[in-house]
C-alpha cells in the first residue's frame, strides 16, 4: 500500500520543545515521499496558552483553564481532520491531542500514530495516553514495548531518531564563519548537570560551548559562546561544520555520572553524521546497530574521552575518514524519509485495510484538458506529488499552499468548486 498510494497525512506539532523540529522534518520527509501533508501548527497557539499565566487567577482555576484550552486545541485538530480527511494523523511527543479527541478520531476511523521521541522512564505520562493511539512509535526497545502492550497499546514500533539531509549537510564555510562558529572541541546543546560536571574537566582543551541553560557556572562561563543564547537550527549546522571535534555527550539530569549510561541515541548523533562532521559520542546501548565502530568514535568514561580527544586532535585524516563513513551510513539508513517509510509500512502491516473508505478516483491529470494538463504536470513536480495523484489529493495540496495562489492553482480550485456545484 504505502509504497504505491499517495496518502494524506496530518502532522500535529507540539506547541514547543525539542520534538517540534522533528515534527517539521517528518512533514518534509512525507512530502518528499510523495504524500499530501498538512501541518497542524500548534506553536501558533502557544502564545495564547502562555497568556493564561498572566491572568492572575487562583492556581486551581489556572490548571482548569489550561486543560480547557488544550481541549479547544484538540477540537481544532478534529476540525482540521474533518476538512482535510487524512489517512493518518501523525503526532509528535507533546502534541496537544486530548484523549477525548483521540477517542473521536478512532470512532471516525481515522488512524493515529504518535512518535514518542522521549525517554519512557523519565516521562511516564504515556501510560495514560498511549492506548488511545493506533500506533505508538518509540525510541527505546525492551521493556518499553511490553509495557505498552500491558497498558493496551499492542502496536509499538521501534523508530530511532534520524536527520534531514536537506538541513543537516556539509557546508563550505568562510574564514569569518569558521571563527564565529568554530572551536577545537565544540559542544552544542543545553547545560544539563552531567554536562556541566564533565566540561569542567575539559578546560585544558580548546572548548567552545553553544546553547542555552549554561548560566551560573563560573568555571565554564568563559567557554560559553553567543552569551549562552538559544541556537537556531541553521546556526547549529554551521557550528557542527566548523568544529574540529564535535563533542556529543548525552544528557542527564544528574551530575553523579558525567557520562550517563543509557539506551536510545539522541538526534544530534544523526545530525552530526549527516553533516559529515566528526564527532566523539558517548556510548549508548543501541549505538552499535545504528553506526559501526569505524563510523563513529565513542567514549564511555571521562578518561576515555580525554584520551580520544587528544588522539583525534592529532589525527585529522582519521577524523575525516570517520566523518565520511558516518555520513554515508546516515544517508543510506538514517534519514527522516527512511523513518517515515518504515512508519507507514508498519501502519499498513498492522491495519491491512488501511487506508480504507476511499472511492476510486481518476488521476487528476487524466481529467484535465490541454494545455492545463501540461501546466499541472509541472505543478505536481513542484509539489513532489506523483503523476497519478488523484484530483482530491491535488486540491488538498493546493489548499495547503502558503501565500497568494498562482492563476493555475486558482483555476484548479475553481474547477473543484465548479464540479461540486454542477457535477461533471
Amino acid at each position: 500500500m504505502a509504497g504505491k498510494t499517495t496518502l494524506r497525512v496530518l502532522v500535529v506539532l507540539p506547541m514547543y520543545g525539542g520534538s517540534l523540529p522533528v515534527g517539521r522534518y517528518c512533514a518534509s520527509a512525507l512530502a518528499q515521499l510523495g504524500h499530501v501533508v498538512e501541518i497542524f501548527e500548534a506553536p501558533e497557539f502557544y502564545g495564547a496558552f502562555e497568556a493564561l499565566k498572566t491572568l492572575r487567577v487562583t492556581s486551581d482555576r489556572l490548571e482548569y483553564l489550561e486543560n480547557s484550552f488544550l481541549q479547544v486545541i484538540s477540537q481544532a485538530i478534529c476540525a482540521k481532520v474533518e476538512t482535510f480527511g487524512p489517512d493518518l494523523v501523525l503526532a509528535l511527543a507533546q502534541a496537544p491531542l486530548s484523549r477525548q479527541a483521540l477517542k473521536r478520531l478512532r470512532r471516525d476511523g481515522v488512524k493515529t500514530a504518535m512518535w514518542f521521541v522521549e525517554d519512557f522512564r523519565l516521562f511516564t505520562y504515556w501510560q495514560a495516553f498511549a492506548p488511545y493511539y493506533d500506533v505508538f512509535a518509540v525510541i527505546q526497545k525492551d521493556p518499553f514495548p511490553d509495557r505498552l502492550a500491558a497498558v493496551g497499546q499492542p502496536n509499538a514500533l521501534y523508530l530511532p531518531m534520524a536527520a534531514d539531509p536537506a538541513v543537516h549537510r556539509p557546508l563550505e564555510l568562510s574564514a569569518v564563519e569558521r571563527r564565529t562558529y568554530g572551536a577545537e572541541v565544540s559542544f552544542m546543546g543545553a547545560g544539563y548537570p552531567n554536562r556541566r560536571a564533565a566540561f569542567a574537566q575539559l578546560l585544558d582543551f580548546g572548548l567552545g560551548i553553544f546553547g542555552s541553560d549554561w548560566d551560573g557556572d563560573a568555571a565554564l562561563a568563559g567557554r560559553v559562546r553567543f552569551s549562552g543564547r538559544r541556537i537556531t537550527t541553521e546556526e547549529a549546522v554551521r557550528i557542527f561544520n566548523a568544529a574540529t571535534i564535535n563533542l556529543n555527550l548525552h544528557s542527564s539530569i544528574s551530575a553523579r555520572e558525567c557520562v550517563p549510561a543509557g539506551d536510545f541515541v539522541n538526534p544530534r548523533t544523526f545530525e552530526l553524521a549527516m553533516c559529515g562532521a566528526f564527532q566523539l559520542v558517548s556510548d549508548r546501548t543501541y549505538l552499535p546497530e545504528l553506526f559501526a565502530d569505524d563510523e563513529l568514535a565513542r567514549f564511555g568514561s571521562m578518561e576515555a574521552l580525554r584520551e580520544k580527544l587528544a588522539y583525534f586532535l592529532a589525527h585529522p585524516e582519521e577524523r575525516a575518514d570517520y566523518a565520511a563513513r558516518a555520513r554515508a551510513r546516515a544517508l543510506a539508513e538514517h534519514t527522516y524519509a527512511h523513518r517515515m517509510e518504515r512508519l507507514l509500512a508498519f501502519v499498513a502491516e498492522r491495519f491491512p485495510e488501511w487506508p480504507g473508505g476511499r472511492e476510486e478516483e481518476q488521476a487528476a491529470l487524466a481529467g484535465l484538458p490541454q494545455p492545463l494538463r501540461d501546466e499541472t504536470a509541472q505543478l505536481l513536480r513542484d509539489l513532489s506529488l506523483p503523476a497519478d495523484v488523484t484530483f482530491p489529493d491535488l486540491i488538498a495540496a493546493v489548499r495547503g499552499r502558503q501565500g497568494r495562489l498562482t492563476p493555475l492553482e486558482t483555476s484548479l480550485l475553481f474547477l473543484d468548486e465548479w464540479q461540486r456545484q454542477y457535477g461533471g
Partner: protein
Amino acid sequence: MARFLVLQLARLGDLVQTRRLLAGLNAKAAAAGGGEVHLAVDCSLAGLAARLYPFAQIHGLPAHGAAGLDAGAAASQARAVLGELAALAFDRVYTLNFSPLGMAIAAMFPPEVQRGYRQFAGQTDKDTLLRLVFRIARDRRGSGLNLADIWAHLDDEPLAPAQVNPEAAPRGGGLGVALAGRAARRSLPPEILAPIVRTVFRRSGVTRLVLLGTAGQAGEARALVRKLDPAVAASCVDATGKTDLFGLCEAVAGLDRLLTPDTGAMHLAAYYGVPVTAFFLSSAWCHETGPYGLGHEVWQATLPCSPCLESAPCERGHVCRLPFADPGFLRALAGSAKAILPPGLARFATDCDALGAACRLVGGEDASAPDRQAFRAFAARRLVGADGDGTDLARERELAERLYLETDWILPPPGRPLRGEG
C-alpha cells in the same frame, strides 16, 4: 557555587519534615564543590532551625503573626529580610507551603528558579508534582506519599530516604509522652491514654516517664497523671509548659521511646533517632505524615471514615478513638503475640523504599494496602524512574488514566529546559 533557598513558613512539624530536602540540597552543594543552603522560617522557629540544620543560613520572617506584632512592624521586619534574600542569586527557590504568604515571597524570584508553589506576574501556580499531589488527595486511603518525600522530590536528586534520619534506638532517658498536637482531635483523651501509657511504660522496662507539651496542655497532663497507677505516676515528670523549643529538643533527643499522636515532637524524635510509638486517628494518616525513618511503630485507625477531614465536624462520635480503648489493642501493645486487634486498627512498622518513607503492615487489617502498593509503584515510576518490574501494570494504567491530565502529557518532562536542544 550552588545556592538554594527553601521557604518553609509552617510549624514545627513541617520544619522537621523538611530535612530530606534540606540535607539533599546540602549534599548537592557539597558535590558541586561548595554552595549555600538558605532556609526562611517564621521568626519563632529561627533558633530551632539553626540547631536542626547547622549547615543552613537561616532567615526569620514574621509569618505566624506573633502576638503584639502589628502589620506595619511585620512588613518592616519582612522588608529587611527580603532585601537580604533579593541580593542573592539563587539557583533554586523551593516554596513548600500552599499559603499566600509563601507564594507572595516566591514572586520576588525569577520564574525559572522557582520550585513548588510559585508566583510570577501576579499568577500563582504549582509544580506538576504538586498538581498531581492535589489530585491524589481525593483518595487519601488509596494513595500515601509522605509529605517529606513530596518536598524532597521537588528537587531532581533527593537524598536517599535511609540517609535522612538515624535508625531508631533507645537513648536511655525513659519514656516520653507528647500530650497533643495542634489538632486536638488527633489525640486521645486521658481515660484512653492512661492505660496505653501504663502498658508501654511497663513493656519498655524504663524507670522514668516524661510528659511533654505546652503550658496549655498542663491540665491535660494532670488529668492523665490522676489516671495512672501510683507506681507509674511516681516515676512521672510533668514537663508540660516547662520547655522551650531547645528544651524540647533536649528532652526528646535523650528518650528511650516517645509515645505520641501526630505531633511536631514525634518528628523531632524521628530526627534524633528516638523510637516512636505513634497513634494516628481522625485526620492523621501515617502514610502521609508518619515518623520518617527505620524503627518506629504506628497504630493507625483504619475505620471506613479514616482519615477524615480535620475541617469537617465529626458526626460519628469520634469512633476512631474506640479501638485504642480495646483490651485487644492493649494486649498487642504489651507484646502479646496472641492478641487480636480490634476492627478498625492496624499496626505499621516504618521503613524506607526507593520513593521514601513507607509504613509496612505488621498487625491488623489494612484494606487499602493493595491500592496503596499500586499507587507507590506508579509514583515510583513517575518520581524515581523505577522500571516497574513485577508491578500490576493494568492497575498502574488505571491510576495514570485517573491522575494524569492533558497538561501533564503536553508540557515537557520535568527538568527539561523549555525549547531545549536536548
